[in-house]
């Protein structure tokens, strides 16, 4: 029983906590009833560590794929985790993916105005930036870029699966079957509308310079014009510009961005324990 003298308002019913009780709470073992809230709290804390492994940053993924050390000189390995494209930016991209078509097109127009699309599409941006920009472009425009990690894979079906569109020409078109070359899509009938104003050679074909902004140049869906290689297809859905030169970051000397005074090198524990003191 408590008398009025020993009443401690800030600690009304302090549970009895000795070392054994604490270890039981930490291990999730049976405890006295008054310690139950602490067991629930401990369980809640542990649950935070039982979730799925987070997605590794590109820098870590690359390092792991390289077997630990081979790619450690890649500047993005140091910058990627805390660099310009963090989870927040990936979240922003994910949000873009959820926008409506009009919003995507508006974003696409803005991005084109800023020249980001052009830079990303031609591989001018370094490493991850290039990849992220290209991913963003693919989200907001009909463009699809070839996958650097899997050259030639892109969205194309593998050989032999019947998805080799355009890979062969029928004998009707080449004239092998009847001696009369058929229409292969490159010619347009004189009876078609607009024949009188049509140039002799379609833009972008047979060396004729493409007209920027001309109909059919990825403008069909309202997407702003994008500078593409001369041999690019006129159909937006088929545009596969080359990935451009390898990332400028590849092979570049390490650019460690961490300004922290701590380092991890001497942390190897002796006898199974961590050795270093936390940085001040």
């Amino acid at each position, binding site marked *: 029983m408590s008398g009025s003298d020993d009443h401690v308002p800030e*600690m009304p019913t302090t549970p009895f906590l000795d070392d054994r009780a604490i270890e039981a709470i930490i291990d999730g073992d049976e405890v006295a009833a008054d310690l139950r809230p602490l067991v629930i709290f401990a369980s809640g*804390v542990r649950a935070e560590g039982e979730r799925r492994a987070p997605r590794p*940053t590109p820098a870590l993924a690359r390092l792991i794929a390289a077997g630990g050390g081979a790619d450690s000189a890649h500047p993005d390995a140091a910058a990627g*985790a805390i660099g310009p494209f963090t*989870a927040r930016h990936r979240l922003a991209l994910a949000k873009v993916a959820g926008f409506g078509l009009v919003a995507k097109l508006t974003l696409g127009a803005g991005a084109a105005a800023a020249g980001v699309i052009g830079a990303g599409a031609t591989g001018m941006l370094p490493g991850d930036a290039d990849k992220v920009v290209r991913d963003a472009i693919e989200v907001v425009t009909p463009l699809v870029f070839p996958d650097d990690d899997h050259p030639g894979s892109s969205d194309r079906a593998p050989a032999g699966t019947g998805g080799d569109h355009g890979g062969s020409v029928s004998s009707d078109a080449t004239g092998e079957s009847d001696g009369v070359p058929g229409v292969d899509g490159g010619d347009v009938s004189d009876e078609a509308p607009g024949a009188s104003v049509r140039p002799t050679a379609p833009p972008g074909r047979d060396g004729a310079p493409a007209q920027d902004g001309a109909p059919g140049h990825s403008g069909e869906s309202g997407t702003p014009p994008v500078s593409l290689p001369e041999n690019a297809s006129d159909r937006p859905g088929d545009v596969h510009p080359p990935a451009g030169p390898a990332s400028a970051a590849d092979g570049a000397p390490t650019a460690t961005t*961490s300004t922290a005074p701590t380092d991890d090198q*001497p942390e190897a524990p002796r006898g199974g324990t961590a050795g270093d003191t936390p940085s001040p």
Partner: protein
Amino acid sequence: MGQRDRFDGQFDEVIAAARAGSPRAFQRIFEALAPVVEGYLRLQGAAEPEDLTSEVFIAVVRNLASFEGDEAGFRSWVFTIAHRRLLDARRRMSRRPPLASLDEAPEPEAPDNVEDAIEQALSRAQVRALCERLVPDQRDVLLMRLLGHLTVEEVATTLDKTPGAVKALQRRGFLAISRLIEREGVPL
């Protein structure tokens, strides 16, 4: 309960394979410990726990050759790095204005059951709120013990404290939590 063995008894083999440059072994290490490291960083209030976790494991991968010890020692080493990265990140954040609050979006994992998800989210938020209210030293100790399954001695080494100090901190931390729950009626 503690799930101290996160490598199914194959810790030595996994580490040996990782040292030999096996991507699969590195992946295994990441999958085994990244969840607890991320949980630790999140409950410590890190701004971007996911990215910080990757930063921790970049250091782990790069310095694995210098590690010697058993699984407990490895966990302790990983948490030492995690704690340092946390301190580094806090220093960085203190020098940098916060970005827009895009990261306040809900967790991407889709729940199977909406009611369960809400309940889970509520209790998760409450656990985080309680951790936030702890004195930093108490929080460090409790989280390392609960999430890292580090012993008192390992926590003491990691935080450069004596085992006695760690014991005192964990006791005070639990008492503080108990008071918060009772006084403020935080439902768990």
